[in-house]
């Protein structure tokens, strides 16, 4: 039940009720996006955003920069490990 799934907002269907269509691995679901909307991110601006969907709600916007940063850290770790292996 606590499993959230990443998906991309492909259509805003109801601005007043903050509803959008989200593509989750090819499956299109109607999702409430109230939790990711505020003054700096109005409903209209959410089109194209990647979000975490949980029980019919978009709980949070996925930050692409932070995702890239996590993957970069893992790359760096791979390089460190490689240099350790070579020096051994």
């Amino acid at each position, binding site marked *: *039940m*606590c*499993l*959230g799934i*990443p998906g*991309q907002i492909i259509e805003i269907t109801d601005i007043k*009720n903050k509803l959008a269509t989200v593509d989750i*691995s090819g499956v299109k679901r109607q999702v*409430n996006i*109230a*939790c*990711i*909307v*505020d003054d700096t991110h109005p409903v209209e601006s959410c089109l194209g955003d*990647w979000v*975490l969907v*949980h*029980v*019919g*709600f978009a*709980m*949070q916007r*996925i*930050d*692409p920069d*932070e*995702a890239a*940063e*996590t*993957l970069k*850290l*893992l*790359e760096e*770790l*791979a390089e460190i*490990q490689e240099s350790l292996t070579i020096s051994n």
Partner: protein
Amino acid sequence: MKYINEFRDPQKAQILIEQIRQISQQIATDKPIKIMEVCGGHTHAIFKYGLEDLLPKTIELVHGPGCPVCIMPRGRLDDAIALAQQPNVIFTTFGDAMRVPGSKYSLLQAKANGADIRMVYSPLDALQIAKQNSDKEVVFFAIGFETTAPSTALTTLQAESDRIQNFSLFCNHVLVVPALEALLANPDLQLNGFVGPGHVSTVIGTEPYRIIAERYHKPVVVSGFEPLDILQSIWMVVKQLAEKRCEVENQYSRLVNSAGNAVALDAMQRVFEVREMFEWRGLGDIPLSGLKMRSEYACFDAEAKFTFPGKQVADHKACQCGEILKGVMKPWQCKVFGTACVPEHPLGACMVSSEGACAAYYKYGRLSIEREEVKVN
């Protein structure tokens, strides 16, 4: 699949495992380093990807109480079933709560006996059923940690705005940090650190875990759910232990920040208040660990609208879910595991939900803690 496949790279996983092995060997201890993954979603992912078998013997994963279905006490299940059996009621619930045994039977058996119980994927689906059935009372079984509580709160606010009068919630939402504090008070459980729940933290942020690091001196690393997320989080916990640090760190920064989600927290604050005491299966009564509807929303509160038994009921004598949820016993050590208690006929809640430790052990065949040392070229 974006934001999924990148975090499943086997080569990077091997490197992380080797790093965990090397750093954990620097920590002077004659026992394995015990790390609790709090969230049932993590437990499920750990078994699905076989991560427990890949880790060196210096690390022992302890499966925590973070499955909302598993921690639902039998008395509350009986209350849910009693609500579902009231005349003129349509009872709505997430599917994974359907097979959890109450003291006599489950919601699924109550449905077979004629109660109008319907499975939904979202509380909004329950609200829709209420709109379509104005001659019936529709009750939603609201369960879960801070991950699901905002969706329930927002649905209540939607019901208020739409002036729906035949919709109510049986509120059983629980809070994660009081549960961790209750676990840390147990002297039987010698934990070294926590892999913190990721989706709860999208709502509450990382700040509420500070008490665990500062008062109880345990590292907490909030983690995502892909294999690399979990391995990186274990690596971060072990690194903290090696460097003698106790901090809250955030591995899941693509979704979690320190302050949480303001809209979600505001909705929860408006609709719910903290209960003085709430009973957890296996853990007993934990102060300030549950949520109830505020009196302003009594018209949407099934506890105010209906009467039901409201009794605490002890767990089945043979079932050791309590010890498993406390992390002091492994599922395969329970005497009914895989015999009297199987997913098709669960005795205890941990065998019901796919996020339950027993169901994960059973499904993925992890019946022993014997593991091979991982070999990395």
